[in-house]
């Protein structure tokens, strides 16, 4: 049932002419810069170090003067160092994987939750959502922004929310069938898995009322879109976001399915050369950088996403004027997204160093089997870890698996390989073999 009446949640803002949008961004940027300079020591220090005062930033033309913010800053300032308001003003914490054992967290004021909620509401409405819809949220609920983000946005458009959270395929399909779910919010890989399981469980796809889905939290491809649309007979839309900026909804696809509109009244997007940091013109491929201009709790100046894409300012057939970002075509770092969870090889290293007898030589092999990501962690076996009994060796294997699960948040298959069998290369060793073909 691919009927969708895609409406625009906030036409005044979403279809605002480019000139007015620029003025709005300039004004909000000035306010944000003044706010963080006065309230966040690290922003002040960094601006002072390059001799920039808030008064030097009159608008987006001056954006390039501001220092970048990195994920390492969120780690170093964990948990509250980047807050621009007293903790009493914070009403929510969300988090995602850091590059080591600790997560990174972001604090939201009520304003920030409202801003984020509207961004998701716009995204869902662009995918056809409205008051009459029944929206099943299959993203995990918790620190991860997927579940709560989609939930809030779905409530905002007045839909009926089915907060399933992730996992339990049988129950997901049963509820989808019995409740007559019309929209699905899910990671694309799990959605494909659900679609493939549907027939195996004896359901007739015609008995489902699903018409569209918002899929995100991991990179995916046009081939996956075709598959999803065919499996469920729906329209499949891409949604993008990150905890550091807000969560899902930072950018979203409209019915044109040709790039994701960035919510430019709340964030300014730039593309920079990942090695030099130089701003690149629209249309060129580079690293996506965001500056938040309405957040008050933990504003981000020029946050480097490490995602590679292009920006497109051409008018869109849907009527929205906000700039569109392409699909993510790669990463400038070695982050992997496994079943929607951000995984850094350095986290795996942290885990291995904690297990006695384990050498920190490892290789991550990622495959997609039956539409599900599979992570294999190859660890070199040392004599200290080895014993003549199977149970002792399995105990070590289990211990590593559990540690990875607890620190990284994903279940990996741990394979013990002979010593020195993992190639050592000079400098930064190659730790990842990704066979999923998601990036070009």
């Amino acid at each position: 049932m691919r009927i969708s009446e895609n409406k625009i949640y906030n036409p005044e803002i979403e279809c605002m002419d480019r000139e007015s949008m620029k003025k709005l961004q300039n004004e909000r940027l000035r306010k944000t810069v003044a706010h963080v300079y006065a309230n966040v020591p690290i922003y002040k220090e960094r601006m002072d170090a390059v001799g920039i005062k808030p008064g030097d930033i009159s608008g987006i033309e001056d954006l390039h003067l501001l220092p970048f913010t990195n994920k390492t800053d969120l780690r170093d300032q964990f948990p509250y160092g980047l807050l621009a308001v007293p903790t009493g003003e914070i009403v929510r914490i969300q988090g995602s994987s850091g590059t080591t054992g600790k997560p990174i967290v972001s604090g939201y004021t009520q304003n920030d939750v409202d801003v984020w909620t509207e961004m998701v509401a716009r995204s869902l409405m662009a995918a056809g959502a409205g008051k009459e819809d029944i929206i099943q949220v299959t993203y995990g609920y918790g620190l991860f922004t997927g579940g709560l983000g989609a939930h809030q946005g779905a409530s905002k458009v007045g839909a009926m929310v089915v907060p399933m959270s992730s996992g339990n395929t049988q129950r997901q399909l049963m509820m989808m069938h019995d409740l007559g779910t019309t929209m699905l919010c899910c990671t694309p890989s799990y959605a494909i898995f659900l679609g493939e399981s549907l027939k195996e469980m004896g359901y007739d796809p015609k008995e489902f009322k699903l018409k569209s889905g918002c899929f995100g939290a991991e990179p995916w491809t046009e081939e996956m879109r075709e598959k999803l649309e065919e499996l469920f007979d729906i329209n499949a839309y891409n949604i993008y976001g990150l905890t550091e900026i807000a969560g899902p909804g930072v950018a979203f696809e409209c019915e044109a399915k040709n790039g994701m509109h960035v919510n430019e009244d709340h964030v300014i997007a730039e593309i920079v050369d990942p090695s030099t940091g130089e701003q690149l013109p629209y249309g060129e491929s580079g690293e996506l950088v965001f500056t938040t201009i309405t957040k008050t709790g933990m504003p981000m100046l020029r946050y480097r996403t490490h995602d590679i894409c292009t920006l497109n300012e051409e008018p869109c057939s849907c009527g929205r004027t906000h700039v569109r970002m392409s699909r993510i075509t790669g990463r400038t770092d070695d982050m992997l997204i496994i079943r929607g969870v951000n995984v850094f090889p350095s986290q795996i290293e942290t885990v291995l160093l904690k297990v006695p007898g384990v050498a920190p030589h490892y290789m991550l092999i990622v495959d997609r089997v039956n539409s599900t990501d599979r992570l294999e962690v190859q660890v070199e076996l040392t004599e200290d870890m080895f014993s003549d009994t199977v149970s002792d060796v399995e105990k070590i294997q289990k211990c590593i698996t559990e540690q990875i699960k607890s620190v990284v948040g994903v279940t990996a298959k741990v394979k013990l390989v002979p010593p020195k069998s993992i190639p050592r290369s000079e400098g930064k060793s190659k730790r990842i073999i990704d066979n999923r073909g998601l990036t070009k």
Partner: protein
Amino acid sequence: MEGKEKYMFINQISVYLENNKGSLRELTKLLAERGIDLLALSIADTTNFGITRIVVREADVEAALNALREQGFVAKQNHVICAGVPNQPAGLDSVLAIIEESSISIEYMYSLNYLIGNKVLMVLRLSAENMSKEEIAALLEGKGVMLVKQEDINRL
């Protein structure tokens, strides 16, 4: 091995094997090239990996370990009990009955393809709560189980 240990146990070498085609052959070929005689070999296999346990003469232990490690295998030496089991009906059962009544658990066992007198040679990896392997060996011997010595193995 020295003193009482030497008297009660024999050497065993355990080798980690990946579940790959040809990995066992790699091991046997290597030992063949070095002229090391395999007196026993047993494999414990799981879905993910295997452990091969071998018995060689004492003079070959060092050479076998070195060869395996050079080739990139993870290999470890340990000492296990080798019992002489009567080569007749109920022979093995009589030994296992003693083990059971002593509340000793068997981690694994396998036989050598040799007889000494009328006894089958069985490698036994045993464990028991609050008992060292020396105590386990002494207890079994005290109950009449014949323990095969490394020097007996060396003469095979």
